[in-house]
């Protein structure tokens, strides 16, 4: 049985219909010694990818795929790296995207799939002026 209800699927399908650019969700999981959340994450991403043919799930092994791990600078699993037409958006999600994180995941997919950033013009100007490496980490919980 799917994690998303038929009603959720219909709503999400509509939200995701704005996507025009292919989005790749690169999922790193660890099968041995990893947490259960890797399995849940894989199921969620699989169901999302099934709702729009521009969304693709790409699976990587956190232990074995060391080249990809270093390419995307992934240091923990489960990890979701979001690509927009194979270009790294530098947006990452760590842990199962349930609860609030799921909303964030869908929003990130829409940004990657449309190239549109829904921010105030002044805020965007400030962000675009950043000229040094800036690493933002946001901690949240599912509820």
């Amino acid at each position, binding site marked *: 049985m799917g994690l998303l209800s038929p009603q959720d699927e219909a709503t999400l399908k509509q939200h995701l219909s704005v996507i025009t650019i292919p989005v790749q969700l690169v999922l790193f999981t660890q099968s041995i010694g990893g*947490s259960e*959340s890797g399995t849940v994450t894989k199921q969620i991403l699989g169901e999302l990818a099934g709702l729009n043919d521009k969304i693709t799930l790409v699976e990587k092994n956190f232990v074995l795929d060391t080249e990809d791990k270093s390419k995307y*600078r992934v240091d*923990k699993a489960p990890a979701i790296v979001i690509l*927009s037409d194979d270009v790294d*958006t*530098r*947006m*990452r*999600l*760590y*842990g*199962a*995207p349930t609860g609030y*994180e799921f909303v*964030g995941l869908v929003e990130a997919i829409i*940004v*990657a799939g449309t190239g549109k*950033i829904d*921010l*105030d013009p*002044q*805020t*965007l100007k*400030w*962000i*675009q002026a*950043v*000229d*040094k*490496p*800036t*690493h*933002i*980490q*946001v*901690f*949240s*919980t*599912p509820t």
Partner: protein
Amino acid sequence: MAAANTNITADAIEATEFMDLSRKYRVTGVPKTIVNETVEILGGLPEQDFVRAALEMPDAP
């Protein structure tokens, strides 16, 4: 923010799954944001306030 500038990387982290990190950054409530290991923002803020705090630009208009 990451999508708007290639200098920015944004990680959303599930706090209960990565307890070591949560302890390291003293995550006592969520959302908690850490920028470059130095800036800490606890709780949600309006868009402009959040960006100003994250980018340490208190004098911005």
